[in-house]
């Protein structure tokens, strides 16, 4: 909105809510990136820190929910403002889950011994990078109420899904080659799944952002979701 | 910043003190004004009461009339019958009275009794014709000269007479009922204000009957129905000016139109009422317009919203709510009319009217005019009667105002 509310405090409340979402998003992105790094470098301590830091994300979610409910009660937001607040509420839950995925990845790091030359490992950072970017872009789109940016995020999920398929096939082959590898590969499979889920959640956020910004839901065509 | 708060510095305190002092002065002025008005009012009332209360009493003297021995010959049966008053009227009652007076109190006593005594004797005989058979002792009202002498104002001769009668133990005083029931007369002790009172009453009835409906309807029309243009503005200005026109001009108008042009009976309450109505109507119209304007538009809207027509809104809602204000204006107008003398003098209500009017076309007088006429009289006896009449007028006005205020309170509604 180009113009602010006549009640400036209302604007402040909405800005604070958006800032919270931004902060959560930052924490989640950092967690994913860090978990990838710890995975590649076998940094067990780093992984432990990630698990610890997830608590912060949970706390932020609680805070966001509290603020959103308060805003609804005290400001009686209408139209675009109301959609924004409801979207913020939902997005905070989703971002918290993304953070949980990063935590799950970190938890598996100690369990992966010198997995060494597993090919899949080289694909995953790239996959994670795309997923992280999706989260970043979609949350930026939320703060800026940019429906088009949200639509663009939708498209990148295909890349993530393709990565996942490829990793899946690789790991499957790996497991079939040598039953010794099953343990490691299973972990890696789950890790890949978590990253893929993170990507999906980013698209969910994109749908919420689109609705908040335009008041309409994305069509089937726009979601481009595979059946 | 730690400046001392503005309230506490000296300049401010000085200003405050001046302000309070100014308030006190103003209040004292107000009290003084009220006090002065009350003082004047008290002065008026006390003076009137002082001078006038004696007018309500009259001196009586005891008289012994030996009817069988007097020259009075009256048919007792006729007295008892329907023509009794005729018989009394044609009888010469003065003779026996004077005879008896002289016999009792000496030669000077011919001045003792006057018309009032004659009247009283006539009434006594009508009441009890059997008096004619015996030697009766009567208390009869004295004439004016003796009356005022007894009250301390008379001349030498009268005073002596009074002293003589008093010594004989034959002097008394009683409430002067005649004052309230009789009309004008030449002898002050015999006058009454009933004639003038009735005349006033009839005149005011005519005034109200004409001015009130016309005034109220005119006010309603001008406020509710008339379009707002130059003509209605002109009418409004004219009515406002009419209310300020000196009353004697209305008298001239009455003279020219009602008497000379329309040849209505002179000195009748009808003409007096018409003239006073002309004078009172603008007051009622102005008060009416104000009262109607002060009815809140929300009531009108509510009535219109329910589907009332314009007439229904005006007569079912606006008029009842405006009625207290209209009645107040009417009270003011009528009170003024009651006390008007000049216009009524011009239309001839200044004659000597000895009998009260029967209807609105009979010649009559009104109280203020009566007071004016009496105050002009030479005879000392009229002084107390004038003041007494003023007291009666004040009471009459109080009663009328009281009635109007009662009516207004009955119609008062909170909205």
């Amino acid at each position, binding site marked *: *909105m*180009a*113009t*602010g*509310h*006549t*009640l400036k405090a*209302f604007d402040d409340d909405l*800005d604070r809510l*958006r*800032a919270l979402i*931004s*902060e959560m*998003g*930052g924490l989640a992105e950092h967690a994913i990136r860090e978990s990838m790094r710890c995975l590649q470098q076998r940094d067990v301590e780093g992984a432990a820190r990630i698990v610890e830091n997830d608590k912060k994300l949970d706390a932020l979610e609680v805070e966001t929910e509290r603020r959103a409910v308060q805003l609804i009660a005290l400001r*009686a*937001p*209408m*139209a*675009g*403002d*109301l*959609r924004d607040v409801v979207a913020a509420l939902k997005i905070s839950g989703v971002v918290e889950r993304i953070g949980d995925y990063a935590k799950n990845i970190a938890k598996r790091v100690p369990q992966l011994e010198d997995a060494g030359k597993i090919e899949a490992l080289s694909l995953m950072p790239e996959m994670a990078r795309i997923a992280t970017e999706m989260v970043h872009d979609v*949350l*930026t789109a939320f*703060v*800026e*109420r*940019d*429906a*088009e940016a949200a639509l663009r995020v939708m498209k990148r999920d295909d890349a993530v899904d393709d990565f996942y398929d490829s990793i899946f096939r690789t790991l499957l082959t790996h497991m079939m080659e040598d039953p010794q590898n099953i343990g490691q590969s299973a972990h890696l499979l789950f890790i890949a799944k978590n990253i893929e889920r993170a990507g999906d959640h980013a698209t969910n956020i994109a749908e919420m952002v689109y609705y908040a*910004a*335009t*008041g*309409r*839901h994305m*069509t089937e*065509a726009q979601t481009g979701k595979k059946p | 910043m730690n400046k001392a708060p503005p309230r506490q510095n000296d300049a401010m305190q000085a200003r405050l003190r001046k302000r309070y002092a100014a308030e006190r002065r103003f209040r004292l002025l107000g009290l003084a004004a009220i006090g002065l008005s009350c003082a004047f009012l008290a002065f008026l009332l006390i003076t009137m009461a002082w001078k006038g209360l004696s007018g309500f009493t009259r001196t009586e003297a005891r008289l012994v009339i030996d009817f069988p021995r007097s020259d009075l010959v009256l048919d007792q049966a006729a007295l008892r019958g329907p023509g009794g008053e005729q018989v009394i009227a044609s009888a010469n009652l003065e003779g026996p009275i004077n005879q008896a007076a002289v016999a009792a109190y000496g030669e000077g006593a011919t001045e003792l009794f006057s018309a009032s005594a004659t009247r009283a004797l006539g009434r006594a005989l009508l009441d009890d014709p059997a008096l004619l058979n015996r030697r009766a002792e009567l208390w009869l009202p004295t004439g004016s000269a003796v009356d005022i002498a007894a009250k301390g104002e008379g001349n030498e001769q009268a005073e002596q007479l009074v002293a003589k009668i008093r010594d004989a133990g034959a002097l008394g005083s009683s409430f002067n009922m005649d004052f309230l029931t009789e009309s004008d007369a030449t002898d002050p002790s015999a006058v009454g204000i009933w004639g003038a009172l009735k005349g006033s009453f009839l005149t005011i009835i005519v005034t109200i009957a004409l001015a009130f409906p016309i005034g109220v309807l005119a006010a309603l029309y001008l406020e509710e129905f008339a379009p*707002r243009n130059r003509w209605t503005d002109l009418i409004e200005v004219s009515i406002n000016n009419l209310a300020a026109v000196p009353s004697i001009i209305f008298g001239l108008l009455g003279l020219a139109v009602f008497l000379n042009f329309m040849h209505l009976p002179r000195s009748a309450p009808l003409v007096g009422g018409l003239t006073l109505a002309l004078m009172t109507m603008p007051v009622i119209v102005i008060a009416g317009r104000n009262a109607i304007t002060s009815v*809140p538009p*929300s*009531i*009108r*809207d*509510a*009535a*219109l*919203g*329910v*589907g*009332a*027509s314009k007439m*229904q809104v005006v007569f*079912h*809602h606006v008029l009842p*709510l405006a009625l207290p204000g209209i009645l107040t204006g009417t009270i003011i107008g009528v009170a003024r009319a009651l006390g008007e003398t000049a216009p009524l003098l011009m239309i001839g209500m200044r004659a000597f009217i000895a009998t009260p009017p029967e209807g609105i076309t009979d010649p009559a007088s009104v109280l203020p005019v009566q007071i004016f006429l009496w105050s002009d009289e030479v005879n000392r006896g009229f002084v107390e009667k004038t003041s007494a009449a003023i007291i009666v007028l004040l009471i009459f006005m109080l009663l009328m105002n009281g009635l109007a205020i009662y009516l207004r309170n009955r119609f008062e*509604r*909170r*909205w």
Partner: protein
Amino acid sequence: MKEKMPLNPLPTPSVSIAAEAHEADLTKPEEAVGTDASPSLANPGDGPASEPTVDPAKSPKMRAENIDVFYGDKQALKGVSIDIHDDRVTAFIGPSGCGKSTFLRCLNRMNDTIPSARVHGLIELDGQDINDPRMDVVQLRARVGMVFQKPNPFPKSIYENVAYGPRIHGLAAGKSEMDAIVEKSLKRAGLWDEVKDRLQESGTALSGGQQQRLCIARAIAVDPEVILMDEPCSALDPIATAKIEELIHELRGRYAIAIVTHNMQQAARVSQRTAFFHLGEMVEYGKTSEIFTNPRERRTQDYITGRYG
């Protein structure tokens, strides 16, 4: 950590959106009722005050077409066209001086009482032009009742307040019939239980909320078809307001109701259709649920989110 980004303006409809199943703008009643029956509603359910199914073929109870109103030289309304349907509450919202009360007063010709007011355009009640010289304005005002902003009961008894209208329109043949009308009206207005023992007391002795319900009973007593309400709750406390809103909800099926209100939450609570007025124009008219969740016009959005002024 992300910084706060400056907020972009609302994206314009240049975003290419394929044709969607989406409620059409409801200036044309035929289209409006059409979408009510359409299966792929974007917002199923009309919100808390859900609407009975409207017969698509039913024409509106009152229709206003291209209304212009002038007070002297100043134009108060420009080209306003709205339909008022039966069994529906239509709310008019907008900032002060935008013309919503003026429009409401056109519907029962109360503007006739203002000498400088001139009304142009067509207003129909059941298909008849109400400004036609042959239309009896007294009858019109009995069919289109009005409740005002400040409760204005007559300074008469409660009974008389309600009985006055039926009496001047001759709706009751005798005292028992009048009693029945008074009782029915007071019951419908939700006031009967509170006043049935004191019908002869003055109407002005009631509390504000009761007075307003008395005014509603008075309007109902003449058996109107449309009830116009001009900010009926603005002088009342929240509890009295809630009672009146509940009353409006109960009356909805029986009368077509149009309500002008300053309070957007109230419009959101009681109405099924809302029209937003601004500077004498009607900017947007549509389903209440849509106006308040996703208005189409920028001015509407600004007003209802509190960005106006």
